[in-house]
């Protein structure tokens, strides 16, 4: 029952985010600030994780290719497929649910606890639009992060394969070109867009409707991470069923 109530509240919140817009001069500054907080400041950790996970994928693939009849270019092929189809869009989004999600929940939750949201309401401002809309717009740049992740993941795989002595440069490059289906990239970016919206709105819901004090801000951040991850995983399954089968 509580879950149904929460789902209802979430969609009611969304309907209010896209009404009674704050003025552009204010909104512009907020969007720029959110792009910096949510996107630019995530590039470092995403790059780091992508590079090394790409390397690990390549090494594990290489170590499992025990049959001498299997060509070495499969290392590049498997790395590309893993990174583009799953790792970059989904795994990075789950990581971002921890980083960006808890930032959004804790910042809105703190505003709620310290009555800053009430202060905005008393001024006659549509708090949903003022606080959540800039985050949704900032997350439109999220595919930019996923592009970096895809590139660095494959590059990490390349470096690990070459310097680990698992295959030659030409074999790896031949592998990443093998049976390349551009639609897979489109599929990855379609689900990235859905995840971006989830990453902006689900943690906002948990922060905005927080009840209690400072301790509850921490609890809400954890709950927000769990639910954002669960929703991303379920959405991933549904989109994959719809677009790839």
């Amino acid at each position, binding site marked *: 029952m509580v879950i149904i109530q929460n789902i209802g509240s979430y969609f009611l919140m969304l309907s209010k985010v896209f009404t009674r817009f704050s003025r552009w001069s204010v909104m512009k500054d907020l969007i720029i600030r959110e792009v910096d907080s949510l996107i630019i400041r995530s590039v470092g950790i995403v790059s780091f994780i992508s590079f090394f996970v790409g390397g690990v994928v390549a090494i594990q693939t290489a170590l499992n290719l025990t049959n001498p009849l299997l060509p070495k270019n499969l290392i590049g092929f498997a790395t590309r497929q893993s990174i583009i189809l799953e790792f970059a869009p989904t795994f990075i989004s789950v990581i971002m649910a921890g980083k960006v999600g808890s930032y959004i929940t804790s910042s809105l939750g703190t505003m709620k606890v*310290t009555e*800053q949201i*009430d202060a905005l*309401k*008393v001024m006659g401002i549509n708090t949903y639009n003022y606080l959540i809309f800039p985050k949704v717009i900032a997350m439109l740049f999220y595919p930019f992060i996923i592009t970096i992740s895809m590139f660095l993941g494959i590059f990490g795989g390349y470096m690990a394969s070459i310097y680990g002595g698992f295959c030659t440069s030409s074999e790896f490059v031949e592998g990443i070109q093998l049976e390349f289906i551009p639609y897979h990239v489109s599929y990855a970016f379609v689900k990235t867009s859905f995840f971006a919206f989830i990453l902006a709105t689900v943690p906002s819901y948990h922060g905005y409707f927080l009840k209690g004090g400072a301790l509850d801000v921490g609890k809400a951040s954890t709950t927000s991470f769990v639910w954002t991850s669960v929703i991303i995983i379920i959405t991933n399954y549904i989109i994959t069923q719809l677009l790839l089968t």
Partner: protein
Amino acid sequence: MITIEKLCKSFEGVDVLADISTQFDQGKTNLIIGQSGSGKTVLLKCILGLFEKDSGKIYFGDQSLQNMDEKERSILRQEMGMVFQGSALFDSMTVEENIMFPMRMLTQKSFEEMRSRANEVIQRVNLINANKKLPSEISGGMQKRVAIARAIVMNPKYLFCDEPNSGLDPKTSTLIDNLIQEITKEFQITTVINTHDMNSVMEIGEKVVFLENGRKGWEGSNKEVFYTENESVANFIYSSNLFKKVREVYQKKN
């Protein structure tokens, strides 16, 4: 003027406000007093529309809050200023930006006009050399002044203060009380203050509404407080020996 008629509010079946009727006059400092948990903050938030009441009516002048949709309430709220208990200043903005914020959001003024108006109210509340500081860099008393400045920058018709003296030393408390009263007189605002500070009652309580377990226990002025025979009010206000003595001396004199 704000009129409240038979206001009721409950949370999960527990009555927090029951049958409250009263009137807050324009140009006066109206105080809501009562013990912690008596429903003061809930009453204030119901008046502001932050909590939906269960029943009853609230009028701002001749405008009825219950007949308004969200957009009309937003317009009415632009005539309200609120000083929150914890000041509720925006952490990421400087003092000047906090005060300019309502103008940025709700008016068409140029940046220079907004800054000029912000500096007017900054001077009015005696904030010195704090324009570029963040809320975390100033004292609690100064934060309250910033909150008052932000609340009055749009020339509101209604000013609400939720425990404006909490966490302040007695001298600063008196300064804040006097400042609110001066502003109320100067701009003929309807001011409603939520407090359990007895100095405030004595100093600026032109009208005092006493809440007891969510019901209106008594109402009158700070002068009438000295002669009230209502036991609950007397027990609440004259709970300390100092105030008992003050009452005795006042009654002997008059």
